């Protein structure tokens, strides 16, 4: 018994030592590397956050971080695909990507991601990797190929000075639109937020919700989506600009809302409204709400392509971003307001305080008020949904 205990303890410390030395080796390799981080660059707050932590990773780990601001991640993705096609497996131009579930599914399917890495990150110990929104991204298992970075939740934003009782379901939203023509809209799919709105309508209207967590099938598509199209057909004439034009993005919707041209806007960040109140872009009377039946929630991730030039530097950068300090900083609405992926119960009391002391602002809902998130439909449903929306409404100008 004693011998077995000694062996087990030895094995445990041996594993720990190997783990530590592996990570030290990664850090050693990363020193002096240039990491190209491709991420959406449309938000000054996010850009500032990345810049500040880029300076920190340079100071602490000697890694030079270059934030490549993109408006559409398709372009770098195409570069990675080209490299795969011509068999060029090193010296890729992208080291880290901030991707959504749809692109993750595509990259995983085409073998564009490197080896599984999440469990090798020291910071991952504070994350519950068994969380359903982390195990799967758009219903596709992540298998440690992408690291969770932040949490997203579809929320609706209104001004309590203008609306006392916002619509809390899609049906109520339709009633509201009928009574207040031109005061509601949604971003144009395939914009990410626009597609999310479509998925939310689909989840609230379909009779076959269980089909959506399974891969897409053309036989099921029509009957699953019929109520969605019926709903949109009746909603569109009452929308902003009578549904003949849609805002390009949620950011454009935010501007229209701020100008007083829309009554409700949407965001995939539950702290977004608070961040904008602090920033001065929204009036202090702006608030957030979710639908009674729940709204879509997921996690957003960071991935390393198979041909990354600075893989060690990429790992170090991701590890830093998943660390307690960076996550707590990110969660503050005065910085970015992106909810953490850390399981705070795993932290020491001192670290937990970092999160508890974050002032979430007046417009942020408590986790009780947010309720349980609805799961995203399987990633394979996204493209058919977008194509069908385009086929139905493109060129159908009244």
């Amino acid at each position, binding site marked *: 018994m004693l011998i077995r205990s000694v062996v087990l303890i030895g094995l445990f410390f041996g594993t720990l030592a190997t783990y530590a030395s592996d990570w030290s080796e990664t850090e050693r390799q990363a020193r002096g590397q240039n990491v190209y981080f491709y991420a959406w*660059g*449309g938000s000054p707050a996010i850009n500032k956050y990345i810049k500040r932590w880029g300076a920190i990773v340079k100071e602490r780990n000697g890694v030079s971080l270059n934030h490549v601001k993109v408006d559409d991640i398709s372009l770098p993705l195409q570069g990675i695909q080209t490299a795969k096609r011509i068999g060029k497996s090193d010296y890729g131009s992208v080291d880290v990507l901030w991707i959504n579930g749809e692109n993750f599914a595509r990259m995983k399917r085409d073998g564009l991601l490197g080896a599984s890495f999440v469990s090798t990150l020291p910071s991952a110990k504070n994350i519950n990797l068994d969380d359903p929104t982390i195990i799967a991204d758009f219903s596709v298992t992540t298998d440690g190929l992408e690291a969770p970075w932040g949490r997203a939740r579809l929320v609706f934003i209104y001004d309590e000075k203008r609306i006392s009782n916002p619509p809390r379901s899609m049906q109520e939203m339709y009633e509201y639109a009928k009574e207040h023509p031109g005061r509601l809209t949604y971003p144009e799919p395939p914009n990410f937020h626009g597609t999310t709105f479509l998925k939310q309508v689909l989840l609230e209207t379909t009779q076959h919700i269980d089909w959506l967590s399974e891969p897409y099938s053309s036989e099921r598509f029509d009957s699953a989506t019929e109520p969605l199209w019926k709903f949109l057909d009746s909603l569109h004439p009452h929308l902003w600009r009578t549904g003949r034009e849609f805002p390009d993005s949620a950011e454009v919707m935010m501007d229209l809302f701020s100008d007083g041209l829309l009554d409700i806007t949407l965001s995939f960040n539950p702290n977004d409204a608070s961040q904008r109140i602090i920033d001065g872009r929204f009036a202090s009377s702006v608030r957030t709400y979710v639908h009674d039946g729940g709204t879509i929630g997921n996690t957003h991730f960071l991935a390393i392509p198979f041909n990354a030039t600075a893989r060690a530097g990429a790992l170090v950068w991701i590890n830093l971003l998943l660390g307690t300090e960076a996550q707590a900083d990110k969660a503050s609405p005065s910085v970015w307001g992106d909810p953490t992926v850390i399981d705070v119960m795993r932290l020491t009391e001192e670290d937990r305080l970092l999160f508890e002391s974050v002032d979430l602002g007046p417009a942020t809902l408590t986790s009780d008020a947010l309720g349980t998130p609805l799961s995203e439909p399987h990633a394979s449903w996204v493209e058919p949904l977008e194509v069908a929306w385009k086929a139905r409404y493109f060129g159908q100008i009244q």
Partner: protein
Amino acid sequence: MTPIERLFALILFLPVAGLIDDAYGRYSGINWVYGVDRLMSEPALLESILLSFWVALLSLLISLFVARAVTQKVVNTHDSPLWRSLLLGMPHSALALGLLLALSAGGVGWRWLAPILDFPVDAQYLFPRDRWGLGAILSLGIKESAFLTAIAVIIAKRLPLHSYRAIAAQAGLTPSECHHQLIWPQILRSLWPAIFVVFVFSLTNLEVSLILGPDQPQLIGVRLFQLLIDPDPLNRQAGSIGLITLLVILGLIWLVFQILNRPQASNKRWSLPGLDVVARLFTISFSGLICMATISLLIWSVTLRWNVLEPFPIVSVHTLTSIFSLLTPFMTTLLVGFATSTIAVCVAVGILEYSVFRGHDRLHWVWWAYLWMPALPMASGFLAWLYFLGGSPGVWPVILGHTLIALPYVLIIVSDTWFDRDIRHEMILKQSSMSVCLRLFRVWVPRHSRLLVLAGALAFAVSCALYTQTVLLGGGRVETLMTELIVTVGSERRSSALAGLINLLLPLVAFTLAFLINQFSWRHRAGMQGEGYADSR
């Protein structure tokens, strides 16, 4: 065709070859027929195509109409070219963004006009991203009329205007009739390559279409771009097939332009008294819109929020501190722009002198062909060749891509004056036993320095305005003010307005600098301000 022109023709053909390869399915491994099927299954494709041709044609006609009137004024009054240069240097996308922020519902212009016109300030209307593409036509009309005017003035200066005027006066024509009846048809005959440039640009541009173009469906350039950058190989193949088809159609249109350009005798006397007034109205409106666009960019770049029912915005000058985040793109824009203009001017001087040496007195069509080629196939084709040659995207490929676009502009601006040299001077210089290089650097470059500096400023402005080349040949890593602007368009309004404003001002600074350099360097050269042909007057 000289060997240099052959080389550049080959460079131009290479991207098309890459595109054909992609369309044929060598990379995707999918038969091209499926690509055609995919393209044809795009919803509302025909509407997109018709709308794009409508936008291209109408903006071309407006630009021609305005250019015709402005050219008359400029050649009659010897107006200072500075204002035209400023408008010429203004990036399309910055102007388009300014117009969007000024004219759309909730825009600055509407907020100011609505109370005067007694309309509800929160009214919703579909402009400038309207179904008829009028917003895009407006923006293209303003910019392209400046381009056509600039080229038309260069052409007009080569004509014996004094003789035309004397003959017209003897025939009892008014100065306006003289311009429309005698001078403009002559200009038009030489203007057709520029007209075709405007048509192609209006048909295929991305930036203006994205910002001011209609939404459902979008213009064809945007839709092909979206297909080409799609991660799905079949979509990319469909995009390549679409672009090749577009190039073939453009070739056919070029033939139509050739037929239309045949000399036609007309006895019709131009006596439209309202024509000049309408043209004047156009130019005044355009000037007002440019001012309003600039003011809108300035206002939105410092505005925190502005409810339409409130008379004034809540502003914060503190927001201007975000200008520091544009420092890196600003420096890169300067570096790329300066390198592009220097290389383009030097190469242009070499090419022009070589053409003179070969006895040419006109610019070869191949230089115009660079401007006829839509930006997207050119950039994506270069990228394919870059990979093929073992290179990778970066600053140098971006500079090369920018130079290839800026070079024809420099050649067009400088060529007429360069070719129009006095044969007696050339003979004297040859007899003086000076070497060709010495003649070039001691005589011809200094004599044309004024125009070369202006052409350099134009090349700088062209470089500042290029997006597709920068993003594709830079692999997304080269951040310029233009890439910043496009990233922020459709996202945070304050940031995009600020990026647009700086993008708008940077080329203006270059032109002002060029103007000042010329004023300073030519202050003691009285009688030589005519760029070489002064002595022959």
